[in-house]
């Protein structure tokens, strides 16, 4: 594979991000534990973040910029903040879920069934 012989570039970051993303999705789908699902969500977000940072980096793009070129980093910071907020809300949901169902097994909460 070319990637193994090449110096570390944008493609490598994208591959790592994709792996992280897929790991997250798989984790979300197979974990019955709500905490596990949350972990999967974090992985998905971080995979996306990695892409932002990689695409936003002037170094990786191989060109000098007029401005600071920190757009991708800004987006990553936003995502991190949102992830923190989301984690707080999700944990609160999990706690309430536990209060009502005495478990954190997401399969038990199928009240939305049509």
């Amino acid at each position: 594979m070319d990637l193994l012989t090449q110096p570390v570039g944008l493609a490598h970051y994208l591959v790592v991000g994709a792996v992280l993303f897929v790991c997250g999705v798989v984790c979300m789908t197979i974990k019955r534990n709500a905490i596990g699902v949350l972990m999967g969500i974090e992985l998905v977000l971080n995979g996306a973040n990695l892409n932002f940072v990689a695409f936003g980096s002037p170094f990786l793009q191989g060109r000098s910029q007029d401005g600071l070129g920190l757009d991708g980093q800004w987006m990553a910071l936003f995502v991190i903040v949102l992830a923190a907020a989301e984690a707080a809300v999700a944990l609160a949901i999990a706690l309430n879920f536990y209060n009502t169902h005495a478990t954190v097994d997401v399969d038990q909460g199928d009240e939305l069934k049509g």
Partner: protein
Amino acid sequence: MEFAASVLPCLLVTAWLLPLLSFAAIVLFGPRMGKAGRGAGLVATGAIGASCVLSLAALVAWLWYASGFAAPPVPPISGELYTLAEFPTLLAESLPLRITIGYYIDALTVAMFAMVTFVATWIHVYSLGYMHEELDEVTDPLVATAEGRPLRRRGRFHRFFQYMSLFSFSMLGLVVAGNVAMVFVFWELVGICSYLLIGFYHERKSASNAANKAFIVNRVGDFGMIVGLMAIWGSLGTFAFGDARDLWGSAARGIFSQVRPPQRDYRLTVPDGMVRLAARAEVEKIYRTAPSVAEAEAEVQRRLPDWRTQGYGYWLLVIAGLGIFCGCVGKSAQFPLHVWLPDAMEGPTPVSALIHAATMVAAGVYLVGRFYPFFAPEVLLVIAVVGCVTLFLAATIALVATDIKRVLAYSTVSQLGYMMFGLGVGGWVAGLFHLLTHAFFKALLFLGSGSVIHATGTNEMPQMGGLLKKMPWTAYTMLAGCLAISGAGVAGIGLSGYYSKDSILAQALSAWNAGRSPVYGLLFCVAVFGAALTAFYMFRLWYLTFVGQPRDEHAHEHAHESPRVMVAPLVVLAVFSVVLGWPLWGLTGLLKQALPQGTEAGAFGGLLLPGLVLPPEHAVHDDPSIHATVSLAAFSVALAGFLLATVFYGLRKLDPEDVRRTFAPVYRFLRNKWWFDEAYQLLFVRPALWLSAAAAGLDRQGIDRLVDGAARSVRDVSFQFDGWIDRTFVDGQVNRIARWVYATGLWLRTLQTGRLRQYVLLVAVGTVAIFVLVSTLRQFLPPGH
């Protein structure tokens, strides 16, 4: 004088419209005027009172205006207020036919205005007292409800005055009207007011029947009137009485100047229009043969006098006159249409006084007086005969009637007969003079009878008697009325009826003398005999009511003098009944100013009855023997009637019961009113009802069955098919769609498992699938995208 001529129309038109204003106000706000509508009576009385003041002012203005003319015929003031419609004519030279609202004011109009508003004002005042029961809830003992209790209903005080105002407006409009179309409209309006007021107690079967009878009998007369109107309109092309200048300044000739053209010394002339209409075959022939229209027209004009002397159009004139008179027969309750007036006494007594004694029924006489120049001598003969038959017939029925109001009603019919008779024998001033005096004393008599009925609660004279002590005001004012109507007076001094009735009889005698015709002799003798009957039945009424022993203790105990608001009109009218005829006031002189031009020479020269000659009215004064004879005859017969009544009913020397037994068939004949009602019932009412029943039967059995059968078959057919079509097509289609939607929903429902992990998986797989799909499809896109 110029000023008087210009102000007269304003005064009279305002006086005419004030009651309309009052009517409108009461229609809109009647029940809310004062407590229980009491204010409505005051509004109506105020309006007619103001009209009265204006009419009296107009009378003064007229005297001022008339003072500018030396000779009696004072030209009338006529004009138009508004043009309702205009029809172009085919004839080139004639003006367009117009229907207008106009006025025609002469001494007769002014005198009628003063009389109508004056009498109406006092009757309104009287009604304020008489109708006071209508202010509260009324219990009508004569009407039983379904449960058998007497009917209780709300009072109709304001409604009474509403109708009275409408009537006053209509009556004044009839008098002031400047053309026959307007007369006819107001003629019908007074008719409908009469209908509404006769049926005022419409819960009583007798009252609603009487109202219908009055209305329907009047229709018969009005049919004749419409025939007359059509003859006038079709031949003369105008409805206006007087000449009028139109917008272009050319004078449109009214009916009167066409019938009595000034060029021919106002002699009765068959108008050109009537001659042309009668000779239309000849006119057509001329037009067909002549080379040009102008020449044809000249030829027609040249031959018109010939045709006139040949008698073309004379029949048309006679028929138009008879038609107009036919309307008057209905309205003035002349034989043979007199049957409605006695029944009209079902209305409240003030209504009987105002409408069915003083004014509306006199409108027929008024119209005959107004149309007088139009009547050919033959028509006058018919008028005289009808009047004479009526006065005799009604007087005989009044002899035996026991209902106090019916006696007065027949007396009214009889007196109206006198007026018609007076006009028919050529006494224009005499007839209308009697109209004016009669209005006062007959209104007085009716109001007096109302006062008695109010006190005793009964109409029947056999239940009265001995009321003189209890109600002296009513009794003595009614005595004045009785004396006036009987024509009491001697040697040139007497009550109002004395002068008017004597002048009618004098003219009748003069007519007999002039022609020596036995017909007029008979008419004169019957009229004199009628005067005796008048005195007899009036004093019979007075004695039965006021003297002798009380025949009904309960009614007598109950009786009391009426309140002041009812007595005051009696006194005022009594004073006028006494003094109105006095030569001092010059009432006949006033009427003479309106004597239609050309009629002062008498009537003669009829083509159908050439021997018929009616002497001029002033001829009576030339021959002193006439007055002496008539005075003596009238006085002696009236005295005889009075003495006879006194012997029978005052002193009770003779028992009327004996006479009744001796002449039982005659009594029965009179008691049944000459069987007129029965005859009409048999001749007209029964066949009409039978015919309508047959028509209704045909309707029900024939037409209704056909329609019903068709409907039933359509319904049966539809019952057979409608369910099937509905279920199969309409319902089926809708249900099928609904079922399909339901099934789809049921299937899609299974996708919603509620399992979060499954959702996540689906989202991920779906996203990948979309990517795969899009990248696969990309290659099919055209290059460049």
